[in-house]
């Protein structure tokens, strides 16, 4: 059987209100890719974290902006691309403090990117400041 690539796109206003819809979208795509329930839970969380960052950090809750999530299923993997046109940032310069340190400092954030890295098999940022910031995340499909 020839490999069929299946592409899905969801575009919603940049509001945390839409995270629930984004998660539904990811869950359905994961089901269609044949992922296990545990793996679906992982991509659901990773994409939620990525989109929450776009809504908060890239667009500062400006609801006139839009969040775009592209998903691609191929034979052995599922890829999510989340693109924003915000100010950008240097992912390598984001300090990854120990949880103990974050707690001591009474921080309420700083966990999203480390979650994404732990949940997905491959994570790449491509930042072109002022133009586009693209986060690409890949989950390999392990056939049950």
């Amino acid at each position, binding site marked *: 059987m020839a490999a069929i690539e299946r592409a899905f796109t969801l575009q919603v206003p940049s509001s945390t*209100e839409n995270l*629930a819809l984004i998660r539904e979208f990811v869950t359905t795509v994961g089901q269609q890719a044949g992922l296990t329930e*545990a793996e679906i839970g992982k991509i659901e969380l990773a994409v*939620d974290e990525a989109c929450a960052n776009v809504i908060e950090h890239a667009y500062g809750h400006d609801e006139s902006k839009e969040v775009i999530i592209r998903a691609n299923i191929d034979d052995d993997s599922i890829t999510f691309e989340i693109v924003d046109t915000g100010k950008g940032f240097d992912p390598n310069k984001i300090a990854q403090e120990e949880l103990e340190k*974050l707690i001591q400092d009474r921080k309420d954030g*700083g966990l999203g990117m480390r*979650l994404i890295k732990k949940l997905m098999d491959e994570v790449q940022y491509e930042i072109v400041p002022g133009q586009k910031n693209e986060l690409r995340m890949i989950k390999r499909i392990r056939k049950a």
Partner: protein
Amino acid sequence: MPNPFTISTTHQNNISIITLDGFVDAHTAPQFENAVQTELEAGNVRIVVDCSKLNYISSAGLGVFMSFIEEVRDLNGDIKISGLVPKVRHTFEILGFHDLFEMSEDLNSALASFSAAQSAKEG
């Protein structure tokens, strides 16, 4: 759509029970944060967060636990977590929260562990 988020707080034996129902994400986490803040302002530092009806949490929700725990413990209180379903427990565990927070199977064990600690101190 999944069931929406609801939060409620009750009090029992001087312990505040915050019940989370539905999902805690970046959209609903502020309500959770307010609920904890309300308890602290009332001087209530013995808190159990009942998660038996929580079916999803993202880092925004974990951040609420993280940001208050130090203050609460400085005041000789604690924030304990009870009733995590496997999916949500997994999210806590990925980041190592199980080493830093007390987690109980169910609400009663969490309440009992507060009373035991209290008795030990008083006894």
